[in-house]
């Protein structure tokens, strides 16, 4: 790792002012430190936001629930407040990484972690996301990569929690030089493009302070299913977050979001449409599975992800 200064700030204004000067924010460090060691991120000053006036609390609000950016994945996995409609979040946190990582990793850092693509993470390989020309995964090894082609970069988004929060219609609260704003996760994550080789629209002067989850009607149920190369300590090949609500036997809310399929977590809108207003009988589930791949363009080495995703969706729907 290159030499660094380490500071902490007592106000958020000082933190965001430092961002424009090239500071990097250190939360749990579980993604930032490996990136600094591999020389993929450059900075001369780290600001430890664990000492800033930021919260890690998980609490009820008039509108639903708020999780502070500093909440650790261990705290999310253990929080009884997240039972009921939000239980998929606890399930996802529990299946993320390992105890040692969950004790340190924070929600804010989890949403902003960079892709696990082996070309991106290898400092010797040239890649579009790092400012290079093309994406080497397209012609190279892409077994873990995206099957949707929304960006010149084929890396899949790695966060388990991000997909779940997207299924919950959550929003991030951001603080920057212009003050506070709330951005829905639908808009916060955006596939990288040539003007912005990053996975979010977070401004260069902005910090995540919290995530808001809107209240869901009583009786809402949810599940997160994760397919991995091995049973623990692996990133999702495909992760499937499902949030459902029924009136009588009819589904009036169907939110489905996948991790591992695209450059950013993705709502499976065609599947949702195929199920909304139905009783989720076999024919409706079949219809949803049929449209799951609509718009996808899998590469030769990752078409299996479609089958995995269909399997997870079917299993999830039948269990709820």
């Amino acid at each position, binding site marked *: *790792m*290159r*030499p*660094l*200064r*380490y500071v902490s700030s007592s106000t958020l204004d000082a933190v965001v002012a430092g961002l424009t000067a090239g500071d990097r924010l*250190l939360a*749990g*460090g*579980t993604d930032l*430190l*490996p990136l*600094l*060691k591999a020389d993929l991120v*450059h900075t*001369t000053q*780290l600001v*430890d936001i*664990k000492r800033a006036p930021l919260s890690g609390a998980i609490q009820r609000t008039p509108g639903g629930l708020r999780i502070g950016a500093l909440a650790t994945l*261990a705290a999310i996995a253990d929080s009884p407040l997240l039972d009921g409609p939000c239980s998929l979040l606890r399930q996802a946190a529990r299946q993320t*990484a*390992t*105890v*040692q*990582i969950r*004790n*340190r990793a924070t929600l804010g850092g989890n949403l902003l972690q960079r892709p696990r693509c082996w070309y991106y993470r290898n400092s010797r390989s040239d890649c579009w996301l790092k400012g290079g020309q093309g994406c080497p995964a397209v012609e190279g090894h892409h077994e873990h990569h995206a099957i949707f082609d929304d960006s010149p970069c084929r890396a899949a988004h790695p966060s388990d929690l991000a997909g779940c929060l997207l299924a919950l219609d959550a929003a991030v609260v951001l603080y920057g030089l212009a003050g506070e704003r709330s951005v829905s996760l639908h808009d916060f994550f955006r596939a990288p493009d040539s003007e912005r080789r990053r996975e979010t629209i977070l401004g260069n002067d902005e910090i995540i302070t919290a995530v808001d989850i809107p209240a869901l009607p009583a009786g809402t149920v949810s599940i997160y299913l994760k397919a991995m190369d091995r049973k*623990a*300590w692996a990133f999702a090949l495909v992760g499937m977050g499902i949030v459902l609500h029924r009136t009588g036997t009819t589904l009036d809310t169907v939110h489905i979001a996948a991790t591992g399929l695209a450059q950013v977590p993705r709502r499976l809108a065609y599947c949702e449409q195929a199920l909304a207003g139905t009783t989720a009988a076999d024919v409706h589930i079949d219809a949803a599975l049929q449209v799951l791949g609509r718009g996808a363009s899998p590469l030769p080495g990752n078409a299996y992800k479609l089958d995995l995703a269909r399997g997870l969706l079917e299993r999830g729907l039948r269990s709820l």
Partner: protein
Amino acid sequence: MATTDAQPRHTPLSLWVNGEYRPLSVQPRRTLLDALRNDCGLTGAKKVCEMGNCGACTVLLDGAAVYSCLVLAVECEQRSVTTIEGGAAGNTVGALQQAFIEHDALQCGYCTPGQIMSLAALFEREPAPTEASITEAVAGNLCRCGAYRHILEAARSLAASGTERRGAGDG
């Protein structure tokens, strides 16, 4: 890139390691793992992947298991670190060391300090953990010799004696 201004000085750091006060002077980029091994001379925590991928560097930070290769030493000001060297007769780490010896739970021994510290965090919280808790606790520690079966047996034996101790206490 690095200008003179960007060259950070050593920072004073007060650490509590295995109950002992350790005043150090470290560069901000120094990991807790390097500070323990090189500045404190405690080489029990092992340096293998340095990326959070193996678990050999696991120590307790204020009682919680962490990968010390992914923590900066300067983040630990006034905090308490427990390493395998803290093992002694009568404490949890010591009891686990004994159980590992009795169950032949190591071959090369390189992963052992990490395995024991992960289990120590669990046993400090739950003296008689379930099978599922034991498996979860060591899921972040690789053993390239494949001693997993004996590691789990060592943990189970301590869990069983924890159940007995608790049973005796309750009665």
